[in-house]
């Protein structure tokens, strides 16, 4: 895990400021931006996966049971999944963090 920016000494940086931890952005939780969150009515869900496919943040993720749920750490609450679900299975609701 990368340290916070303000904790870096100049000696800590790789030559050329190369970052050698691929995908370490996972430690940055964009879920904090959210006002609304998607809520799925699984009785309406057909497991088609379009909500997963259209999520710009890869925050709508498959569960073991084949349904999908938004990841609280990364879902920004954009509402695309709810808008694009053909079965109106997703509603955007207030997020009580």
């Amino acid at each position, binding site marked *: 895990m990368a340290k916070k*920016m*303000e904790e*870096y*000494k*100049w*000696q*800590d*940086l*790789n*030559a*050329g*400021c*190369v*970052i*050698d931890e*691929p995908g370490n952005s996972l430690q940055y939780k964009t879920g904090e931006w959210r006002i609304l969150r998607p809520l799925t009515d699984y009785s309406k869900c057909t497991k088609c996966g379009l909500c997963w496919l259209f999520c710009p943040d890869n925050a709508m993720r498959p569960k073991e049971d084949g349904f999908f749920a938004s990841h609280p750490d990364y879902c920004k609450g954009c509402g695309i999944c709810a808008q694009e679900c053909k079965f109106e299975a997703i509603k955007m609701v207030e997020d009580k963090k």
Partner: protein
Amino acid sequence: MKRKGIEVSKAIAEAAKLARVEVVSAYPITPQTHIVEHLAELVANGELEAVYLNVESEHSALSACVGAAATGARTFTSTSAQGLELMHEILFITSSLRLPVVMVLVNRALSAPLSIWCDHSDVMAARDCGWIMLFCENGQEAVDSLIMAYRIAEDKRVLLPVIVNVDGFTLSHVIEPIEFPEQDEVDRFLPPYEALFKLDPERPVTFGAYGMPEIYTEAKYAQEMALVSSKKVIKEVMEEFGKRFGREYKVVETYNMENSKVAFVSCGSINENIKTAIDLLKKDGLDVGLISLRLFRPFPSEEFLESLKNVKRLIVVERSMPQGATNTPIFNEICALIFTRKLDLTVENYIAGLGGRDVLPQEFLELVVNPPEKDHGREYKVLGVRG
């Protein structure tokens, strides 16, 4: 070791071949053309196993070198004046990304007026771009410097790009007897390039992230520390080169400094005429020395100070206009050193050889015995300017 009479530009291309460059990316501009033409020929004939990239501009020439170097290839580019200016933006990025690109800069005056002839206004406009910068006085030095440049640039303690400055026409287009080392000797001196980080799907890394105010200062300081500490490696490499190939180089070269109270400071091919002037003066019983900066970036402060010995008067001759600054770049740097180290020296600043104007040994000689007045309230004197 083979010795042959050859145009310096061609010799430089042959040196790049000896260094086994892998990607050549350049855009033609006088007086650099003969270098890249000869390289294109070497690649076309299969004598050099490399990609010759016919890019559509110098900006792209250097950008492609950056991409290739980041992928782990040994890269070469070459340009002059306007071409260097077009690369300007990427010069800084190359050094910040710590990529060991090597460039031969065939020095030429900047437009306007357009001039294809030599001076150092091109390199001086880019002097703080974070590259290591070497100057050469003759063709042999150009060949040797190019080979050393790769060894310096690719050293894991350095990882910085290098500019080898070669004066346009006066150096690039003359035929000189040059000693070429054997390929296997060069191979022993210069092992294949092993990148510390590279663009490789097996081990993905990110090059060129942006810096917020919280981290930008540390990033720049780390880069500066690398450049400053590269001097140690440069000296090591020069020493090893001397041992292996019999031609020894120093970051600061001196000529007739032993008993001199007066000394010139300069760099590049103009030094040959300065040396002639010094020889003439010596015949008249006057000892005058020359301090020649082979290394300009990082500035070899300690070595410069050591070279001063008994000097009381310095005559700094440079080939670029300060354009609104108090003095020329090297002069300013030297004066800062003299002031902070509290040395007792007088320093004079002369500008000569702009846009290919010849400066004869006699004129340098005059500077010593008959220093001209400064004019127009300036802190320097432009030699031979009419009016």
